[in-house]
């Protein structure tokens, strides 16, 4: 056991280096996309957001939302689901646990 532990301790720097070497390019790729795609909206986006909301309301009122292709409808479903999942992630943050309410 002690031998295994000391062996592990001797290998640890190399292992850490391996982990870093392995994950750095992946994290760089992640950051390359995330900094653009996951960025929160800026105040400059507000006009586009309001016009987008208005067009949503309008398509709900005029029934235009029924006139989309299956592909668009599927994409809209996915986007709605994604936003719903953001809500659930927020709930997990707010309640401070992953599963259930640890009261």
């Amino acid at each position, binding site marked *: 056991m002690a031998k295994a532990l000391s062996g592990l301790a001797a290998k640890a720097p190399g292992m850490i280096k391996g982990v870093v070497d392995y994950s750095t390019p992946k994290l760089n790729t992640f950051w390359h996309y995330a900094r653009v795609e996951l960025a929160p909206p800026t105040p400059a986006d507000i006009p586009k957001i309001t016009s987008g909301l208005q067009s949503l309301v309008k398509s709900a009122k005029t029934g235009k939302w029924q006139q989309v292709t299956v592909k668009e409808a599927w994409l809209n479903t996915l986007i709605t689901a994604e936003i719903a999942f953001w809500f659930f992630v*927020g709930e997990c943050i707010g309640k401070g646990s992953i599963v259930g*309410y640890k009261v």
Partner: protein
Amino acid sequence: MAALAPVQVSPLIKFGRYSALLLGIMWGSHRFRVNKAKEDAWRVEEAERKVVRDAQKAEEKLRLNREELLYLANQAGVKVPPNF
């Protein structure tokens, strides 16, 4: 570096995501507080009930024990002391 340019996500979707995240945080912490208040109150009551319940159980055990000893004495023909 990565070959593809990142997608320009619609501001409406970004707004939706982050408002949902924020709403979720608010909802989760609200629910947590409500549930915690309820559960804490219940735990206080339950602690009081436990005291009463434990006392009742102890009393019942004493009574049963005495009955059993009396029965055993009767069966074995031992004279029971008057103060038992």
